[in-house]
């Protein structure tokens, strides 16, 4: 297949970015036109990615190793497109964020897709920047003081972490003489101090994006201040992109020298799971709670990478999906409950069980998935990670995972119990919106489906992670 064909999802999306911008100029209901165009673009890219996934099994290396299109990158495409579709639907008809909202979401999703197929450090850097730049704008686009603060904080930490990442990449280039991950693999046998320094700085840069403790401090504030639909994109899409590039970078470029990074990642994973979930416990603002929960879940993802095994890679890839569904569902409910408000606290959830039983039931399912209770996807994902950790003979990771889950329980159950408190009658009854209802329905079907019959997705993920040269 030609490179044109293989990268069609990316081209399509880039084309639709331009189309959306043109759509913004069309007289009439601009936001509506842009939203439809964006949705069509994301959906068509989704369909194309899925169809290429189903026929292409052999990795294709394009652009002198700069781009690798394989089942892995295509699966990442599917995940981030899902996040993008969620963001568009959750922000449907919302004029508050301007008509460029859709185009910016599309660009950000494009960046995440680029991260999925990065084969050298140039594409890695470009992907991160294409992903981040629109998110800086979106984070600041809420016309409140907090919105601007969120954008500013995100921007400064983003620029800072990109600087660290860039310097790390430069040192790696100096130590290895190449920018391509495939060449790294044969060059990393002999570790030089400069390579070590470059690798550490690069990882720190990626950890900032992923929100790994101790590089997590920006997450809660940015999540709280950003518009909810955008926060959803950050929580799901960015995490997919950063995790995808982390896995590709380490298990592709440094697969022969896990001694340089394996143990460090293991300790960070345990630290992140415990600290993230611990800090989530006292939160009363739902967005902040989800932010800390996102930190904790980044730790779970890191477990898969730290095991340095095929199982770990698969488990991490699988875990992204139940996590993403849960994020979609949680933010859909959050947007319903918030109404015109900026933030949702636990007391805003009171009485939802009696006023909107179905909404409350869906929220409960989502929270149980976060907590990892069986018959939800979250449990199956944690089970897979646990399996990978034990197969890799790393019981410490398994225990860290369990302790993190236990700590998280308290955080996820408090909102659930709040649903059953007597309602505050002065608050308006949450209203359904069409876009949000679609997102919520998909999230619930996905969560329950993954929990009850994960076999097809497990199969798909296992096939997608097959390209790794691990055993």
């Amino acid at each position, binding site marked *: 297949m030609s490179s044109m064909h293989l990268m069609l999802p990316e081209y399509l999306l880039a084309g639709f970015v331009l189309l959306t911008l043109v759509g913004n100029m069309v007289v009439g209901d601009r936001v509506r036109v842009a939203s439809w165009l964006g949705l069509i673009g994301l959906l068509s890219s989704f369909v194309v990615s899925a169809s290429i996934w189903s026929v292409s099994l052999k990795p294709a290396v394009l652009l002198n190793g700069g781009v690798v299109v394989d089942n892995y990158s295509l699966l990442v495409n599917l995940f981030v497109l899902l996040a993008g579709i969620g963001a568009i639907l959750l922000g449907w008809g919302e004029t508050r964020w301007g008509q460029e909202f859709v185009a910016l979401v599309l660009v950000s999703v494009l960046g995440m897709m680029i991260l999925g197929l990065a084969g050298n450090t140039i594409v890695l850097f470009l992907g991160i920047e294409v992903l981040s730049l629109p998110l800086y704008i979106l984070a600041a686009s809420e016309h409140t003081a907090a919105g601007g603060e969120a954008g500013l904080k995100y921007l400064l930490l983003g620029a800072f972490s990109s600087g660290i990442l860039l310097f790390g990449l430069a040192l790696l280039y100096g130590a290895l003489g190449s920018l391509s991950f495939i060449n790294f693999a044969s060059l990393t046998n002999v570790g030089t101090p400069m390579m070590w320094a470059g690798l550490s700085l690069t990882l720190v840069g990626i950890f900032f994006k992923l929100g790994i403790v101790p590089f997590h401090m920006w997450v809660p504030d940015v999540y709280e201040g950003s518009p909810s639909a955008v926060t959803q994109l950050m929580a799901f899409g960015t995490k997919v992109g950063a995790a995808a590039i982390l896995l590709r970078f380490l298990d592709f470029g440094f697969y022969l020298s896990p001694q340089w990074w394996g143990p460090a990642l293991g300790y960070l994973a345990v630290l992140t799971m415990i600290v993230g979930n611990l800090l989530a416990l006292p939160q009363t603002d739902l967005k902040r709670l989800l932010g800390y929960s996102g930190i904790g879940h980044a730790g779970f993802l890191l477990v898969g990478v730290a095991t340095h095994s095929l199982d770990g890679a698969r488990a991490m890839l699988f875990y992204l999906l139940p996590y993403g569904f849960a994020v979609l569902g949680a933010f859909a409910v959050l947007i319903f409950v918030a109404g015109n408000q900026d933030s949702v606290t636990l007391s805003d959830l009171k009485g939802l069980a009696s006023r909107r039983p179905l909404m409350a039931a869906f929220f409960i399912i989502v929270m149980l998935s976060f907590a990892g*209770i069986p018959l939800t996807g979250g449990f199956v994902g944690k089970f*897979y990670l646990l399996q990978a950790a034990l*197969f890799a003979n790393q019981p410490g990771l398994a*225990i860290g995972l*369990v302790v993190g889950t236990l700590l998280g329980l*308290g955080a996820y159950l408090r909102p659930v*119990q709040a649903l059953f408190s007597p309602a505050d009658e002065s608050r308006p009854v949450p209203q359904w919106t069409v876009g949000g209802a679609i997102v919520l329905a998909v999230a619930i079907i996905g969560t329950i489906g993954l929990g009850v019959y994960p*076999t097809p997705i*497990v199969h798909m993920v*296992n096939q997608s992670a097959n390209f790794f040269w691990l055993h």
Partner: protein
Amino acid sequence: MLVVWLLAVALAGSLVTLWVPRQGAKVAAGIIGALLIILYIGLLLHPGQGVNVPWIPAWGIRFHLGSDGLSLFLLGLTVVMTEVAILASKPEWGRMYYFWILFLEFGSLGLFSALDLFLFYIFWEIVLIPIFFLLTSWSGVKGRRAAMKWLIMNLFGSLFMLIGVVAVAVIHTQPFGPLTFEIAQLAHLHMDARVTPWIFAAFFLAFAIKAPLWPFHGWMPDAYGEAPAPVTALLAGVMSKAGVYGFLRIMLPLFFPEFVRYQTGLLTLAVIGLVYGAFMALRQTDMKMVTAYASLSHIGMIALGIFSLTRVGILGATFQMVAHGLMIGGLFIILGLLEQRTGSRDISAMHGLNASAPRLAAYFLFFALATLGLPGLPGFVGEYLIIQGLVAHEVAFAVIAIIVLVMAAWYMLRVFQGVMQGPDRGQSILDLKAPQVWWIVPLAGLVLLLGVWPNGVTAAAVPSLYHAVHLFAVKGGGV
């Protein structure tokens, strides 16, 4: 296949109750419960093969359900107690209440029939959720904290057990076994002596917390105390058996050598629980808490039977599980009716009620006598077998057990006398009415049947126990 139908009807039924009119929820749930009892009778007549199909082939997980002598009567206990609990509940508790009760039944049925370790674990955690919500929404403010305590304490054990579950399967693959979670296959496992104690502890913790065994009963007083009476009946009658069932179904085949090694410690633990429960029961003034601690003591007794590691002791424990479920469940429901009528649970606040409610008093006495082990009633049979098993191992434990039996008579009769007898101070309550009698009588009849014809359970349980014993022999353990 009937097992699958049982599960499917319970799950579908729980969803159906969500869509019936609010007033009809209890009726619908009652009909579904009755349907499940009919299905269960079918299962009793044709035990059949169960079902065993691949579920997640990549991980060697199978959807394997079946019913053997060990689980068959626990399934029966579940359907009967759930139906009784439904009938004892108030219609105004609403659809969600009956949904959770039936969902709990679904989880319990799955738990008792799962033969794949992963499937077992799924149901093991599933049953926590309905109780959590029942405690959250249908009890007082303290119920919230009880719910939280229930879920977190149980998940504390369960999550470590999850590590154990996966570890067992992973060890089974090394060096070249297939990845499987079949309990029967995992039973042939030979584990490294360095990791076995940890895995043993992980499983033991989970089962001991749910049973609960002393000293893992921290959640018990709150949950038993706060839950509505029918839910308490299910907790004490059915849920507590899940933990004990785990010892029999999972731990005995997998860890028999460890059981032999730690036997004295385990027996001591169980005996302390037995004595502690009895003493605590004596000290309580709240009649529900007396029964709760009595239940703790009884679970200690059942655990003694299992840890005696003799065939007769285990047989007694198996029998006592079913019998105790019916008796303690009945007792909690009677207490619930009493509380509903008097508005209090304090023993000292009630006197001479049998004057105005002779039928209620009679059934109270019947269930109280059954739990304290009166000959002719099933409690006696189970305790007799357990003590017989203990004598074979260590007489001291048997002696303590017998002493506690005497205490049991004391604390049970103390409650009965305090509440029902004594001077009539003009307190007058409503006696049992016809609809309530209709379902208490069959329950009492069932208890009586077990007492006079224990062979029914034991004869059916023996073959599967022999199967377990055969496994022990393979692993080099003694019986």
